[in-house]
């Protein structure tokens, strides 16, 4: 059943939770280059979700740790290939 009108309660709940979670990532990534200190599957798991920031409605400019981590990962050739973006 699709909502007939925008579900404001849901939108507020999940956009707030999304920003809170990115804040948790940011706190970690301001201290360490990678989530588990060195590059691991933890970074690979998070990356595609952060890559969709436009669709999800947040900006990396507000999260300097996540932004630097994201830019660093975006240069990895395996990530470029895996994400299907022509390099």
């Amino acid at each position, binding site marked *: *059943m699709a*909502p007939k009108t925008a*579900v404001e*309660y*849901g939108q507020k709940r999940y956009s707030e939770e999304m920003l809170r*979670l990115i804040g*948790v990532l940011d*706190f*970690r990534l301001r201290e360490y280059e990678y989530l588990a200190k060195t590059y691991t599957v933890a970074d690979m798991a998070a990356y595609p979700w952060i890559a969709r920031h436009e669709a999800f409605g947040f900006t990396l400019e507000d999260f300097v740790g996540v932004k630097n981590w994201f830019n660093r990962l975006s240069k990895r050739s395996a990530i470029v290939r895996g994400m299907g973006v022509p390099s």
Partner: protein
Amino acid sequence: MYDIYNWPTSNGRKVNIIVEELEVDYKIHPIALGNGEQFTPEFTALNPNQKIPVVIDQDGPGGKPFTLFESGAILLYMAEKHGKLFPQALDKRYEVMQWLMFQMGGIGPNFGQAHHFRRAAPERVPYAIERYTNETRRLWGVLDDHLNEQEWVAAGEFTIADIAVFPWIMRYEWQGISFDEFPNVSRWYNAVEERPAVQRGLDAQKPG
């Protein structure tokens, strides 16, 4: 010795259960969520995500205290360290991991949202109640079909996958589900519930 910072939510109870199954030394430090104790600076230093459970293994790697959050990670760490509830053979091990991820990524978040919109939300949101109740029922169905073929959730034995799923199935009333509808889940649930260690784990902290 494990210091366990915990409250008897579905995720919290997983840890209270596994320490009884593993018969390890532990001390529970209650973090009363209703009082906002998860938001103190002391607790936030343990888990920046401000969620229970958190454990500190005082006998951690290299003989140093080791702090861990995320109930799934805690189950994996303890099972691996104590050599039980997580088979060694790679195929069985990853069958357990698969069903643990099914719980951590599917059951937990979706049943949690169903609980929120059915019971806790300050306003009634029909779209959300329907969405999360339907997804909850769908997940029960996946589990029931699976348990029609299998005695336990993974690898043909009682493992951390069963421990992870059980406390969420315990909240069937919050989800508006009757065990009559899911006979295989019902059979499995009774088998887990009657384990003495599970009973001791549930008794260690009781929801208010």
